[in-house]
């Protein structure tokens, strides 16, 4: 198992390298020039040249790439073209809210989606099943910002149960943190609750046909034991796959949610960086996301072995 873990980590190196090349070229090939954005519309050609020289953008592409990679190897992600602050500092300031939001959304997803999916499969074809399926279609089709504004309007504006927007870190106390993270997390989670409950239902429906489920019932076990101990663990592999890829894809949903709920997270940083063509910052954020993606995939694969004893990695 450790063997396998190390092997997979080593395999991540070439993956990350290709991501780096891809991001670098993609940014250089898209229209837009950071020098123009920094200097403004009124700048003369000479001023632009000076700015480009200062930023190192006048060098040939290969030279820029080699410099960037060399700095990366030393752990230097560079300095933002716009704010002149180190990229890592900028990301460090913003990653907390984003990770909190993503984790809260994932927790809500598991908390609602697993029981809903299991119950729907158990009452297959009955009212409860239909209700879960209808909810799931809604969850897919309503965009995150609509869900967000509806939640704000109902819980914050009309019922006045929760604050409208904003963010408090966990270090300032659990209650203010939860009060502010709950609505954005729920808005973000709605699509994943739909996705994961559907997957759980489908996977459970298949597993409930298995012989060992019949064996469990023949022993006179309670239906809840049959469902959760015997069936759900066997249904887990496709569910884990969806949860893992879903978690990795949360990033895109985070951008919208953060702007709806005015959360100072990575999403806003990315949008600002892209609009300003802040090359070092965009590159660092995408590399970071890719790294998280690789890591999550590895964790999913390892979790298969934990849920199913027949899965063994060499």
């Amino acid at each position: 198992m450790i063997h396998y873990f190390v092997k997979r980590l080593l395999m991540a190196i070439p993956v990350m390298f290709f991501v780096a090349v891809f991001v670098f070229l993609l940014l250089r090939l898209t229209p837009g020039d950071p020098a123009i954005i920094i200097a403004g519309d009124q700048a003369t050609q000479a001023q632009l040249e000076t700015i480009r020289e200062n930023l190192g953008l006048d060098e040939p592409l290969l030279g820029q790439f080699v410099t960037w990679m060399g700095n990366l190897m030393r752990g230097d992600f560079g300095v933002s073209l716009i704010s002149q602050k180190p990229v890592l500092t900028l990301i460090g300031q913003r990653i907390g809210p984003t990770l909190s939001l993503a984790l809260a959304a994932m927790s809500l997803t598991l908390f609602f989606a697993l029981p809903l999916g299991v119950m729907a499969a158990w009452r297959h074809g009955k009212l409860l099943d239909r209700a879960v399926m209808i909810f799931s279609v809604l969850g897919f089709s309503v965009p995150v910002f609509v869900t967000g504004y509806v939640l704000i309007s109902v819980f914050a504006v009309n019922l006045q149960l929760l604050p409208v927007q904003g963010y408090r870190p966990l270090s300032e106390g659990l209650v203010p943190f939860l009060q502010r993270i709950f609505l954005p997390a729920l808005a973000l989670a709605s699509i994943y609750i739909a996705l994961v409950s559907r997957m759980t239902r489908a996977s459970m429906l298949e597993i409930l046909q298995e012989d060992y489920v019949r064996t469990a019932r023949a022993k006179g076990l309670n239906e809840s034991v049959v469902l959760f101990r015997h069936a759900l663990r066997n249904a887990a592999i496709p569910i884990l796959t969806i949860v893992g890829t879903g978690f990795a894809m949360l990033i895109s949903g985070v951008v919208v949610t953060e702007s709806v709920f005015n959360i100072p997270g990575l999403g806003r940083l990315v949008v600002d960086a892209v609009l300003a063509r802040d090359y070092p910052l965009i590159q660092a954020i995408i590399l970071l996301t890719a790294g998280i993606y690789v890591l999550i995939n590895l964790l999913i694969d390892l979790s298969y072995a934990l849920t199913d004893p027949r899965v063994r990695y060499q």
Partner: protein
Amino acid sequence: MKAALTPALSVRNLHVATTGTNPTEILKGISFDVNPGEIVCLVGESGSGKSVTSLVAMDLLPKQEIRPTGGAVLLNGEDILTATPARTKALRGAEMAMVFQEPMTALNPVLRIGLQMEEVFLAHRKMTGPDRRQAVFEAFEAVQLPNPPRIYDSFPHQLSGGQRQRVMIAMALALKPRLLIADEPTTALDVTTQKQILTLIRQLQEENGTAVLFITHDMGVVVDIADRVCVMRNGEVMETGPVHELLAAPKTDYTRSLLAAIPSLTPPEPAGEERGDIVLEVSALSKEFRLGNPLARLIGKPDHVVKAVDEVSFCLRRGRTLGIVGESGSGKSTVARCVMRLEDPSSGAILLDGHDISTVQGGALMRARKRLQMVFQDPNRSLNPRIPILESLSEGPMNYGEDRTSIHARAAEVMEIVGLDPTGLLRYPHQFSGGQRQRIAIARALLMEPEIIVADEAVSALDVSVQAQVLDLLDQIRRERNLSMLFITHDLRVAAQICDEVMVMRNGRVVEMGPASEVLANPKHPYTAALIDAAPGRSWDFVAGQPVGIPVPS
């Protein structure tokens, strides 16, 4: 004592039908009793309703699809059909228990055996953790499982099929239920394991005085285990009676035909020594499977090598049938797959009319393949369900460049040879019965005009009456077309009837080979003798309708 007369299970005029707008009756008013201390066999072919009967008794029917519509099922006098779900749940596992057919899938693969076993006690008894553990060890010992603590910590995939079925039996009998229902509990097991499990069920049943409802399709098993027999067909009980009476003097034509279809263990007299030329000669064939990975190889760790086939040699002559007999894991199917070149042999030679095909590739392999055709075990899965059978049949010849019109003409002919109506060519596999589908699989092979047919357990998935017909068909085709056949089977009765020579395999090696009449009548190797000894129903002569050993009056 009057109490002793109450049957443990009493099924009274039970009706069961499918739900939905167009219900079909699956059980049409069946009645039978199982008394304490008695083993009643419910015998029937597929679709007779025997498994549904057992599920009704356990209250395990999928009620959205199938539900009882009338009658009563009394467990110790208490009607299961009218009992509340909570009551039947309390009875399940405690008063009535069940052992299922497939030990490979009946246990939960992700939970430890110990936990699955303890659940029985958790659900029905108040016991402390250590007491439960102790009770589990005792239950394992009762079914003669070696090293109970190790079994307790194992997962199902770490145990053999026989061990898993012992665990299932231990689970079912843990709380000493009044009624044990065993649904084909030995069908998926090898004969030697089957014999041990049957002995075990008999022994535990006698110790505890349990009533056993034993469901099987195999008359040989009936002979070995039943006190009384109940023959079912299409949802009705055809006849009931004590086992020897029923076997010796069946009252209905159906039972008679069922008994007549059982292949005898004694091979027919060899029909003269016709020595044809050798079509297929296999010499020193070996197949190794290497399990390892490049990283382990780099650090010099040797691969794990499994020798599936170890130096196997045999000859197949024109117009003859060679049987390869053995239990699961003996390598018999791997030999067939190597001969077909579906696997590449590790070493050895496969001479087809004197030319070695063990390593040929490309065009030479394509030419060889046409001469060897295979019939697989499960016709439900060997035919593509999405295309009409004409397409399935035509694919092979089309690959060899034959034009459609001539293929279609030949396909119609071949359908008639295998006893099917050529108009069926445009239908899909699901529109045929299992036996018909196997005929289609044979037709598919014949359309390639092979010299050798390799039949891998080709009749094992079929009901005994259909099995007899398909065996006759294969034999007839072999004779008419002077084909040679490599017949792989685990069933000695089938081998005895269709094979001229048999080759007994064990752990990848040949233990004995010779004419069927000699090997099966006077086995030289102790393993062959053990196999024959384990064949179910050996003590009964189905042809004479009496126990073996009584001389037939001439």
